[in-house]
């Protein structure tokens, strides 16, 4: 139903999620964000997420704030399908550090870490 993976081998920590994200997956999401938090660059790839509720969104917002607060750089790739809707309803698609694709996000993260 859902899958959340954390890959810290690339130059950025990459959290890739797919499927349906609601309160049931809160612990998995929290663990993944926590595991990524120490990296200077964090990518959250939600491309394959098919559903997302406010619990999952709240955890994402918290992760973005924590990375920001530590001076790290984070990019979020929004869901490709209808799960993107919650970002539009809350206008967070205009507030969060969104990248249009995983490749662009990684390029931006590499660019910022080279500075």
């Amino acid at each position, binding site marked *: 139903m859902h899958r959340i993976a954390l890959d810290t081998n690339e130059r950025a920590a990459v959290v890739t999620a797919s499927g349906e994200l*609601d309160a*049931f997956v*809160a612990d998995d999401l929290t663990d993944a964000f926590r595991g990524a938090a120490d990296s200077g660059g964090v990518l959250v790839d939600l491309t394959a997420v098919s*559903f997302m509720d*406010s619990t999952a969104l709240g955890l994402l917002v918290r992760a973005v704030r924590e990375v920001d607060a530590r001076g790290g750089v984070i990019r979020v790739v929004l869901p490709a399908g209808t799960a993107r*809707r919650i970002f539009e309803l*809350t*206008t967070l698609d205009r507030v969060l550090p969104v990248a249009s694709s995983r490749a662009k996000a990684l390029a931006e993260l590499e660019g910022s870490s080279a500075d």
Partner: protein
Amino acid sequence: MNESVVRLSFPAKADYLLLARLALSGVARGLPVGPELLADLKLAVTEACGNAVRHAYVDSAEGSVGVAFVVADDRLEMIVEDNGSGIDVPVETLVSEDAAPIEPVDGGMGMAIIRAIVDELDVREGADGHGTVVHMTKYLEAAK
């Protein structure tokens, strides 16, 4: 006026939130509900059920969430009911039009999302003074 009612009841645990969305998919079959509207309605019912799971059973381990889908000629109603200790925020705050949906604070964001999706939202205490009933109505374009 034709009305069909589908009822679902599940323990107040996040494990079962998916059931509300699956039931809704079944109910929406044959209704004039496109993929985008279905996604919106899934979000609304999940937010209501999530609030019930999160807030309704702070003090008691066991509780259940009831969901009723009422299909009428011109609308779909989704009624989410819990028998817990109730939400601790004044109902007027939850349904107020100008509450900003930006901050994901304890259910307030969920209510703001629901309000943005459905046409009518009514939040009240349960009949016996316990729990909360969230009544959502979405009017549908006439079936072809």
